[in-house]
């Protein structure tokens, strides 16, 4: 009996002991929806084959702001998680505080800098240090359109914003809502970001949204952006207040609305209904002479910790994330494309393939830009001013000139 008990105890102790052989890493992130969790499981499984356990610390809500707060309190109490999901400037800003582990040795060994688009390095490096491993890349400036509505009205995917607005007016006359969206500032910001570079070129975008050049901010080009934004407002129905982005996507799917401006996370809604790109729905970039690729990336940074097993696990996690196979598996589920540019496009859907191609072109043409609304251009204190002005302009009846004035004053006040 006692022998049986002893072996039972031994058996129960063996399982976790074997699993903990190499160590556990706690990962703080804000991914809680089903597809996000499924995508993370790709990373988790690969990490387990290396003998490390993934300890999940998901703090959802407020687009990651809640997770940021959790991180702040963890860092203040001297108990940082092993790894953390970074958005926008969070990584570089934490690195400036000296709490993020430098992964430069791994990056050199793995050729990470060469494998990533150069424009992206701003958000994963800090000085000479390599501070975060990027897993995916979303594109913010997509248009998702109901193909049947376009075909019935004899409209092809537009090549310029004039064409797009003309098409919208035609659809409105036919009683279809041309543009589905909600009034949340970030949904309006997606259109504003696209107009900045589509109307005036990527150079203007860099001057206005990244360098915050006063001349560019108060230029006639900026007025033109607001003028066009006003025309887009005319294409949106009056019930857009409080509408969730996924509800707006649903309107395009059901044929209540013709198109939506949204990042490629909207694609999942179409695919989940069994719809196929270019047969049931269109995906195309916001129209411009030089098509831009406004990127949003998710990366994982590692914090400086004393525990050596956690340090080992951090190395393993970083290598897992940068593994082309893992990037492919992850992004097939998440709907984005790999942050690495050397992953094969096979198995991805047509929209993602288009994304791959246009990314390669954009890197060449210099039109690969960080998406301001999601924190990848100006720092949050400035990006939020753009967001405020664009949103107030969009929902009210401010003139374009007043909006430009408000923008210039707001940016100066935040400097």
């Amino acid at each position, binding site marked *: 009996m006692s022998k049986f008990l002893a072996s039972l105890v031994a058996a129960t102790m063996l399982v976790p002991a074997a699993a903990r052989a190499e160590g556990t890493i706690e990962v703080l992130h804000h991914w809680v929806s089903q597809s996000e969790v499924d995508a993370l499981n790709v990373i988790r499984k690969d990490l387990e084959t290396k003998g490390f356990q993934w300890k999940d610390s998901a703090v959802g809500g*407020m687009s990651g*702001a809640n997770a*940021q*707060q959790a991180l*702040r309190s963890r860092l203040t109490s001297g108990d940082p998680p092993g790894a953390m999901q970074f958005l926008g*400037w969070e990584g570089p*800003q934490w690195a400036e*505080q000296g709490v993020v582990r430098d992964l430069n040795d791994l990056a050199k060994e793995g050729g990470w800098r060469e494998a990533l688009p150069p424009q992206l390095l701003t958000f994963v490096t800090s000085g000479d240090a390599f501070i975060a491993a990027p897993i995916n890349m979303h594109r913010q400036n997509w248009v998702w359109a109901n193909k049947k509505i376009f075909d019935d009205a004899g409209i092809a995917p537009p090549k310029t914003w004039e064409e797009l607005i003309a098409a919208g007016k035609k659809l409105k006359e036919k009683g279809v809502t041309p543009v589905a969206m909600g*009034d*949340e*500032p970030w949904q309006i910001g997606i259109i504003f970001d696209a107009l900045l570079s589509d109307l005036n070129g990527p150079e203007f975008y860099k001057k206005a949204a990244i360098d915050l050049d006063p001349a560019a901010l108060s230029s006639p080009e900026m007025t033109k952006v607001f003028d066009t934004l006003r025309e887009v407002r005319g294409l949106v*129905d*009056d*019930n*857009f*207040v*409080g509408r969730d982005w996924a509800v707006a996507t649903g309107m395009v799917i059901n044929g209540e609305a013709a198109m939506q401006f949204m990042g490629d996370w909207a694609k999942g809604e179409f695919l989940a209904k069994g719809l196929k790109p270019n047969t049931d729905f269109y995906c195309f970039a916001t129209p411009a002479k030089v098509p831009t690729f406004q990127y949003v990336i998710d990366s994982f940074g590692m914090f400086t910790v004393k525990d050596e097993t956690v340090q080992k696990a951090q190395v393993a996690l970083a290598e897992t994330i940068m593994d082309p196979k893992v990037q492919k598996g992850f992004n097939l589920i998440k709907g984005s494309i790999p942050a690495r540019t050397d992953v094969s496009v096979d198995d991805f859907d047509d929209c993602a393939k288009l994304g791959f191609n246009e990314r390669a072109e954009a890197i060449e043409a210099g039109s690969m830009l960080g998406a301001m609304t999601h924190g990848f251009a100006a*720092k*949050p*204190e400035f990006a*939020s001013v753009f967001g*405020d002005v664009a*949103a*107030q*302009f*969009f*929902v*009210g009846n401010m003139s374009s000139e007043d909006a430009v004035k*408000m923008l210039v*004053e*707001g940016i100066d*006040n*935040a400097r």
Partner: protein
Amino acid sequence: MNAAKSFSSRLAGWLPRIVVAPSLLIVIVTVYLFILWTGVISFTSSKFVPVYDFAGFEQFVRLWATPRWHTAVANLFIFSALFLLLSTGIGLLMAILLDQNIRAEGFLRAVYLYPMALSFIVTGTAWKWIMNPGLGIQKVVNELGWTSFTFDWITDPKMAIYTVVIAGVWQSSGFAMAIFLAGLRGIDNSVIKAAQIEGASLPLIYRQIIIPMLRPAMLSVIVLLSYIAIKSFDLVLALTNGGPGSATELPSTFMFSATFRRNQMGVGAASAIMMLMTVAAIIIPYLYSELRERNNG
């Protein structure tokens, strides 16, 4: 014997202090220390994380140069004033009507009080749909045949703050009613009888006798409702999320987004200090007069 007695009596003297000490300490640390810390931060140039330099009144200047803050302050006054006025008025009216010995009073009382049991998040979400022109009231009335009827305040930046008032009043006037009803039941019937014998009309009795006698209930209602008005962060978040644009921003939502989402910790702290000052400007004279009255009494 004598020593033991003095020990126990000394213990008895100290016991209340010992019992209160931990909670006092917690309050000192979690409330007053953090108020002090927020005050310190408001005089620094803190952005992403706290830094401890001295920037003078820079953050306050920046705060008052932000149009969103002006909207937030104006909204707080509009919202609090209307919310207090309407909740108290409607609550009092309902209490008086319920007090007329009507049938099924208990049932009606529960109906009117029930919204208070909901969280502001539920209220906000429900009213967001009710007031959406494409889903709620406007659509129903239009479909009934009155096609020119519009009720689209929630989409209009100028009117949106009043939708927050509507939702808030809906939730809280039943609560005001319950307190007034308790106050009405506490009024001695003989006073009213005496007035009736003197030939006073019913409206006159209410205006001149009953409502003045409800003063303590009125004070409780106003204190409790002002506190609900100032903390109504969640209602705005669920109903309009500060929109359209930033039309329904309140100081509390401004403070949250400045500190945690916009890298403006210094401005956020400055706005928190401004809120504290505003509340103090109301509370301190009130406390002063209350305490003086008690000392005199």
